[in-house]
């Protein structure tokens, strides 16, 4: 972006502006684009969700405003804007106002490190992944503030639940990413995507295989389990069914949003859907190769000719478009899965949610981290790390052994944990023997 603007201002118009001004303009421009993209994503996602879930229920869904009802979210947005903004008398006015803003702002920040396509990343941080999750944890503050400021039991309860849920499920989410980070050795999102080029297993290191862009981490046992755990945690972070307890309408009316109306309410919705989009996007990026896919690498290879080492313009553009298409398709597919899950399941109770997070998901992801270490040790390390016995193996052999071991370990861990967890659920259930024995003896 900097180059383009620099070219435009200093070469085409010949204004000779200093570099800081140009970079300021470039950043502002990118930021503006992102700020525009986010609400549009939200509008489309709400429409998409309503249509999809309606079809799952043998209905049609919104189809009156515009072609196929495409403008329904616009109409809803206009309604939101024109609604009266009600601030309860007993509310803390300023905090009540700041709450939704603090919830929305981090979701916008998170766009900063999101790669849309090859080379299309606003800010390639070398700790992009960490940034993503660090920023996402900020919105908890906003939830807390808005729940408290509303001065309403339901709102406070909803905020407490939301924050507890977010904080709890951040751990499995980060742990499952940790496994991937172990494998890649990098926290840069762009780097992560580049490592998923190749065929099937990127670290297999088999020569002569064409770049099909299918070296997605989800195809490894480690990556698959991490993906499952991460997606479940993402459902909880994005407050999607079956973890939408903070806004459980059958219990605590609308949670922290109870006392909000008009555009402030809309901001919560915006934040929620944008966050959902981002979570889907990051799932697609980390486990499904982001813009990687069959054809992107090939197009790039075509672009580079001896005469033009930087790449041919047309092929570059084509590759970029294909990459963006892959990325968006994957992202929307995951959003569809979210909708699908919402269409199929009921909601957990808050204590069951916490149980599931702490007693099932976290141990599972911890085991997965161990698997990842085994994987890295067998496929990457060698004598220098004390694994001299693998030195003699062929690369394919190393890869195969690692695959089998991690697969068995993960399956065993999953079945073991599932059994322990469901037994714990059963035991807790009908009669509490401990209590009964104590009380019988008391009498």
């Amino acid at each position, binding site marked *: 972006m900097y180059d383009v603007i620099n070219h435009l201002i200093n070469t085409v118009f010949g204004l000779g502006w200093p570099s800081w001004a140009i970079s300021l303009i470039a950043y502002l421009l990118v930021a503006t684009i992102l700020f525009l993209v986010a609400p549009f994503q939200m509008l489309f996602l709400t429409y998409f969700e309503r249509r999809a*879930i309606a079809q*799952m*229920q*043998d*209905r049609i869904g919104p189809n009156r405003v515009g072609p196929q009802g495409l403008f329904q979210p616009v109409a809803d947005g206009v309604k939101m804007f024109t609604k009266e903004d009600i601030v309860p008398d007993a509310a803390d006015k300023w905090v009540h106002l700041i709450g939704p803003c603090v919830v929305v702002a981090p979701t916008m920040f998170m766009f900063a490190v999101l790669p849309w396509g090859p080379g299309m990343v606003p800010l390639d941080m070398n700790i992009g992944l960490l940034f993503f999750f660090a920023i996402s944890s900020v919105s908890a503050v906003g939830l807390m503030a808005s729940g408290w400021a509303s001065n309403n*039991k339901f709102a406070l309860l909803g905020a407490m639940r939301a924050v507890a849920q977010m904080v709890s499920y951040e751990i499995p989410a980060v742990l499952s990413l940790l496994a991937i980070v172990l494998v890649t050795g990098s926290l840069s999102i762009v780097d992560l995507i580049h490592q998923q080029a190749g065929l099937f297993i990127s670290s297999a290191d088999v020569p002569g295989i064409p770049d099909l862009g299918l070296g997605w981490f989800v195809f490894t046992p480690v990556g698959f389990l991490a993906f499952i755990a991460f997606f479940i945690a993402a459902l909880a972070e994005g407050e999607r*069914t*079956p973890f*939408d*307890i903070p806004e*459980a*309408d*059958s*219990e605590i*009316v609308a949670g922290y949003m109870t006392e909000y109306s008009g555009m402030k309410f809309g901001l919560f919705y915006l934040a929620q859907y944008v966050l959902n989009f981002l979570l889907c996007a990051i799932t697609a990026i980390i486990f499904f190769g982001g813009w990687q896919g069959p054809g992107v690498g090939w197009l790039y290879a075509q672009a580079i000719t001896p005469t033009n080492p930087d790449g041919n313009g047309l092929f570059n553009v084509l590759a970029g478009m294909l990459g963006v298409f892959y990325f968006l398709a994957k992202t929307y597919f995951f959003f569809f899965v979210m909708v699908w899950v*919402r*269409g*199929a*399941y*009921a*909601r*957990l*109770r*808050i*204590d*069951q949610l916490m149980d599931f997070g702490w007693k099932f998901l976290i141990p599972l992801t911890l085991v997965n981290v161990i698997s990842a270490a085994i994987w890295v040790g067998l496929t990457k390390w060698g004598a220098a790390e004390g694994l001299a016995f693998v030195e003699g193996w062929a690369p394919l052999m190393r890869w195969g052994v690692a695959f089998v071991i991690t697969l068995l370990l993960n399956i065993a861990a999953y079945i073991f944990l599932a059994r322990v967890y*469901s037994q714990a*659920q059963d035991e807790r*259930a*009908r009669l509490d023997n401990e209590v009964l024995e104590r009380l019988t003896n008391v009498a």
Partner: protein
Amino acid sequence: MLKTEELQINIGPQHPSTHGVFRMIVTVDGETITDLKPVFGYLHRNHEQIAEVNTYLQNMPYTDRLDYFNSMANNHAYALAVEKLVGIEVPERAEYLRVLMVELTRILNHAGALGFLINDMGAWQTQLAFGMREREKILDLFESASGARLMCNYFRFGGVARDLPPDFMPRLKDLLIAMPAFVDEMERLLRENEILLQRSENIGILPKEVAISYSVTGPMLRASGVPYDIRKAEPYSIYDRFDFDVPIGAVGDVYDRILVRIEEMRQSKRIIEQIIQQLPDAQGGHINPKARQNVRPPAGDVYARVETPKGELGFYLVSDGSLKPYRYKVRAPSFINLTPLGDMCRGYKVADVVVILGSIDIVMGEVDR
């Protein structure tokens, strides 16, 4: 040690999951319920006194409005009571038509009730939409037979208002093709689902002895393990001619209530199939031509009850020999099934209250009367 205070909260009267205008005063210790008092009467319209100023036939459409999900079953109970009081014979064909309608009602009620129950657990209406879809089909049939979808007002003393239209039977047969698929699908959605198991298993247990002493009826009683079905216990109409099973639960929790309702839909379908077989041989028209609708029963009292989808619906009628009932008492299943709500919820979490209430399957029109 951490201490929690007891706190009283009101759930309702205006709350998304109280199934109407219904209030629960809940005392909680942390999240655990120590006491729950149901409060109702917001829909009270003194139905019984309205009935005392109407003639017997004029009450028929009012019984529709008791439990508006199952107007046919309500009509049946009332028609049985008046026929018993006056001594009206019902032709065979009319009996078949009655049982057909009532069993369809049972299917539609359970389809809806399960959907609403899962909705209370937080599902986003999918199960409800599936249930409602089947319900709408049955309502279409009701509409073509009786003229209305909900307030059918189809039963008359000595029969039913009119015979089936010609397109009824083909559509009914179509419906019976869809019904097993629908029930299986519902079961697949509900039975093994881990989330649903967590939310319903061992929640709101009502043990057998307690259920009996609480006079609980219908699927709730059977889910507690008491095989008491009025269709079997005191066969009315022509229920002694059909083969069907009585499903009972083993534990008496919400999950058992779900399973019992699913199985009852299957059994109702069995009865309907038998009706379709036997109907062509049935004698008599849709109504006893000798039966006067403007009845003037002799002085006396009568109690007649039927097994509605929600439980025992009874009408206690006292006649003084005039055109209007002297006393008209409704023994409403939803009303009595609500009695153990407080005890059932004790010791569970706040979020479970909604589920337990949903599993009772109440209709406020019947509770408040």
